[in-house]
């Protein structure tokens, strides 16, 4: 069980508590600046968040680093290269065992890409290396910020299939993809949770229209035409 109690990031995320079931793929949606990344950061311990995160009874903050690698891993939204490492070396830095590194390379079908320097790969190929790095140590909780961005349609599908059965909190922008693959859907708005529940319920509820200012009409998403604007501007 994964429990976050009163986690908050000053100015970005209002205090909130959250429980995630093991093995559930939870998708996190919300407009730009709504706090998706901040929630992932707060759970991953980035930027000195307040509150407490407990995974399988272990408090993440006080866990030794070797254990922490098995508790959670985080994929940032940026695919920037910080240092021109080879893919395999970057994956190995995750704290995974040699066997886990090879398994992750096979899982994302990286083959010879893993031997090349990351600055010589395309953004999508680099994304797969970085996703492999997050998956390699087989952590109890995956925190992925827009993992499907930059991936081709086939890899988007393969990735979402890969994530089934793993405990993951995944920020993404495509509402239909999120609703189709998630076991649970969380809608963020202005640093708070605006809706949280099974995807069908959330998608049918009022939150989507209220938060995003869009509606589904004849099978397509379009801007809401209600008066007064759909969401307060920040």
């Amino acid at each position: 069980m994964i429990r976050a109690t009163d986690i908050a990031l000053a100015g970005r995320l209002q205090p909130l508590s959250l429980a995630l079931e093991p093995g559930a793929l939870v998708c996190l949606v919300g407009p730009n600046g709504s706090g998706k990344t901040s929630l992932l950061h707060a759970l991953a311990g980035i930027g000195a968040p307040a509150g407490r995160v407990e995974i399988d009874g272990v408090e993440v903050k006080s866990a030794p680093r070797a254990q922490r690698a098995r508790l959670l891993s985080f994929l940032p939204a940026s695919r920037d290269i910080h240092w021109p490492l080879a893919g395999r070396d970057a994956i190995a830095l995750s704290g995974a065992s040699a066997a886990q590194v090879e398994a992750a390379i096979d899982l994302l079908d990286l083959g010879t890409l893993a031997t090349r320097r990351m600055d010589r790969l395309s953004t999508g190929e680099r994304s797969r290396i970085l996703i492999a790095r997050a998956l390699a140590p087989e952590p109890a909780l995956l925190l992925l910020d827009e993992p499907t961005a930059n991936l081709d349609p086939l890899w988007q599908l393969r990735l979402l299939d890969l994530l089934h059965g793993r405990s993951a909190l995944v920020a993404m922008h495509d509402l239909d993809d999120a609703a189709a693959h998630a076991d649970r859907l969380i809608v963020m708005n202005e640093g708070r949770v605006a809706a949280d529940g099974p995807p069908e319920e959330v998608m049918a509820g009022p939150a989507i229209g209220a938060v995003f200012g869009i509606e589904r009409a004849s099978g397509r998403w379009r801007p809401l035409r209600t008066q007064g604007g759909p969401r307060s501007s920040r």
Partner: protein
Amino acid sequence: MSARATFLLTLLLGTATALSLAVPWGDLAALFEEDRRLVWAVLVELRAPRTLLALIYGATLAASGAAVQALFANPLASPDLTGTTSGAALGAVVTAYLIGLSSPLALSLGAVAGALGALLLLLALAGPRAETATLLLAGLAISALAGALTTLALALAPSPFAFYDAYDWLMGSLVDRSLAQAAFAGIPAAIAILLLLRLSRPLDALALGEEVAESMGYRIAHLRRWVVCLTAVGVGACVAICGAIGFVGLVAPIFARGLTGGHPGRALWPAALIGALLLAAADLAVRAAPLGRTLPIGVLTALLGAPFFLWLVANMRWRMSR
């Protein structure tokens, strides 16, 4: 680093150390005939400080270079190109000629303060993850400013011989230092290197970006403070005794990463060994050069290092334009 590379580096380092102590051999042989105690005195009092300083200064520059490169995520960062050595030199000159304190301790403290000031200014100007151009420009500006202020301090110095006095030292020199001076540079530098080596893992994690490193449980603000302070202490202590020596801190980490698969943090230890080897070799070359007088070692490292730097820049440009 493979066992073979470690063995080879250690062997080369041992050879350089032995040569540095033994050359010129003729004097020692002649003394050996006269009085064996004199041989010992020459080795310990005259030659050992120079050898020790070459090894420890080279290792300090290289380890700091590797750490600063990892911290700024930039393979062109190094203590000299970022203005740290110039800052340390300014600190030492101000302490010696304006404040009038010339004990090794005062010089070391002055140089460490100067190095720290230069690094903090660099962080403020260029930011923690600067582009190469920004970083080098900020470094250039700091070096220029520190250089100008050093000259100004020497011009304002009460002693009319300040320029002449400081010249050899400013160009970087290991000659005629005492064992006590070697200890003043060597002990803080050795401590700084050992503590920097402990940061290998977090610096490797930083290769994945700040967010990922923090999610792995490393405190990046903390790491940045340590690298800055340890670099300032190591470089400052060495500059106070031996003056500014350039390019070893740039070149050694680049060679070292060839041995460690490109990991920035893991390169710290081999970089320190290579740096020690490079400076010991440069010192041997300076002694062997048939010039009639001893060339300041900083001149030799700049003569060899600057073209290497130019090659790196050209190589980067070529890669970007491809």
